[in-house]
């Protein structure tokens, strides 16, 4: 077969994408597409895994057995999500453990929301409701992403996510309908998580350097601001319904645009947390690094045992 020149390959590639034909692992793809995907999917995977920590923080203190089981199952799901996503990066030729090492060295990023501490039981409600809520909003469009393994992982993830948000909202609902202390606890959690949750969609479109190319490649299907607006519009009535107040004095329904106007996000805080200065950045990465380090001898032993068994079988 005649060697196709790179322009022709790229043209055919983009044509496939434009026709909504999925790209599969061994298909030709531009190197930048591969690299962008590896970065995006592994960041997403890291977020799932680091995201286990703030909620894992309350498993042993959950207030009753039902909540304990639900929270355990929820955090476990996040480990699963991380795993599906790391698997997707491996189809692109990225090695899982190397990808993880990048997280531990600080080279790779993860969602900055997980650098905030969970200080009360109500935070389990706020995280499920807002953080998983925002994640779902981000992820549903990715089920149609151009890269097959990523899209399929997202389908699986989204199916599992739906209970995460509900259990969080249920916690909030119960607290909001509870005693004065419980109500205050819920409101305080909403106050602390509202703005960081809106930051989860990333910087404003005007400052987002990857958006245009990623949209053309269909590895991103909506802009940051579109999704953020959607989140606000959906969440505000939910908060009202259970009697909690969104901590934004500028929040106002805008009849003309059919959505809410909302206050200025503190992007300095966002960039500060991204740079590593959030309340828990150090602890989160440290916890993951330790887990890997403490598991080293275990993984080594399992390999050694497997090798011995193979030898035995062969002889």
């Amino acid at each position, binding site marked *: 077969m005649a060697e196709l020149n790179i322009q022709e390959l790229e043209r055919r590639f983009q044509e496939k994408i434009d026709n909504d034909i999925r790209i599969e692992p061994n298909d030709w793809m531009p190197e930048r597409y591969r690299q962008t995907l590896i970065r995006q999917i592994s960041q997403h995977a890291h977020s799932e895994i680091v995201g286990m920590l703030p909620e894992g923080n309350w498993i*042993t203190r959950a207030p009753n057995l039902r909540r304990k089981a639900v929270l355990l199952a929820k955090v476990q799901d996040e480990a699963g999500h991380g795993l599906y996503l790391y698997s997707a990066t491996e189809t692109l030729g990225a090695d899982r453990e190397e990808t993880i090492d990048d997280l531990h060295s600080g080279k790779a990023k993860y969602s900055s929301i997980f650098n905030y501490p969970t200080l009360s039981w109500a935070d389990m409600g706020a995280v499920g409701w807002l953080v998983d809520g925002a994640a779902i909003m981000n992820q549903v469009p990715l089920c149609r992403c151009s890269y097959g393994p990523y899209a399929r992982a997202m389908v699986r993830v989204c199916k599992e996510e739906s209970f995460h948000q509900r259990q969080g909202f249920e916690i909030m609902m119960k607290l909001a309908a509870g005693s004065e202390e419980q109500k205050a606890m819920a409101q305080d959690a909403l106050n602390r998580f509202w703005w960081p949750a809106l930051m989860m969609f990333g910087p404003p479109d005007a400052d987002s350097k990857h958006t245009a190319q990623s949209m053309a490649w269909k590895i991103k299907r909506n802009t940051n601001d579109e999704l953020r607006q959607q989140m606000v519009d959906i969440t505000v009535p939910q908060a009202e319904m259970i009697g909690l107040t969104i901590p934004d004095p500028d929040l106002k329904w805008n009849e003309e645009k059919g959505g809410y106007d909302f206050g200025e996000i503190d992007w300095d805080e966002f960039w500060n947390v991204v740079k590593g200065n959030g309340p828990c950045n150090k602890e989160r990465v440290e916890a993951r690094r330790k887990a890997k380090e403490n598991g080293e001898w275990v993984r*080594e032993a399992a390999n050694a*045992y497997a090798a011995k068994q193979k030898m035995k079988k062969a002889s």
Partner: protein
Amino acid sequence: MNTLFEYLVRLGDDSLILGHRLSEWCGHGPILEEDIAMTNIALDLVGQATSILKYAGEVEGKGRSEDDIAFLRYEREYKNALLVEQPNDDFGVTMMRQFLFDAFRKPLFEQLTQSSDEQLAAIAEKSLKETKYHLKHSAEWVIRLGDGTDESHDRVQSALNDLWRYTDELFFTDEVDADLEAKGIIFSSEELKASWSEMVKNVLNQATLTIPDNGWQHDGGRRGLHSEHLGYILAELQYMQRAYPGMEW
């Protein structure tokens, strides 16, 4: 004394406290796949604790729910075996603790499926399926670690040496057991110990581990005399219920 209630609390507390210990691993496992596996076992144990303590509340007949029993007793009223409250330490200790416990619970639930108490038999039936898997998982790990590298062998051998002193207590019996055995609700603890010993010997042998001399054996858990570890477990477990008494979550 309501012997069935007492027995159910012992049974349920084993699941509750070991489930608590295992859930401490969530997010910190040696590899992602094993993190998920340990959480599954923890979930099974929390589920067992829920159904057993719920039944205990019914048997007691004082209107206590499974949550009242799980979260609102004092230290001396918890009746789990000392083994399950021992700290996780490293993965070797956790898996050895799990194996020694699973090897006891599998034959126990096998027996209890024959219980004259239908509710207990039903709980045992469901728990047995879960426990068979737990045992397979923990036994395989003990073998892998024992027969893995020098380091893993030493670690898991020292885990075995440290935990061995808590194993006899699993077969502890007193007037509670005697009464229930007479009623056909539970069965011989000697038979239990025999199946346990056989399983343990077999697996430790494959793992190239040495069974420690049967030195001093601790007990007390079944009578509510615990190690210092339990108090800290309860401080976390009960935090919300104690800080916000009488509220719903």
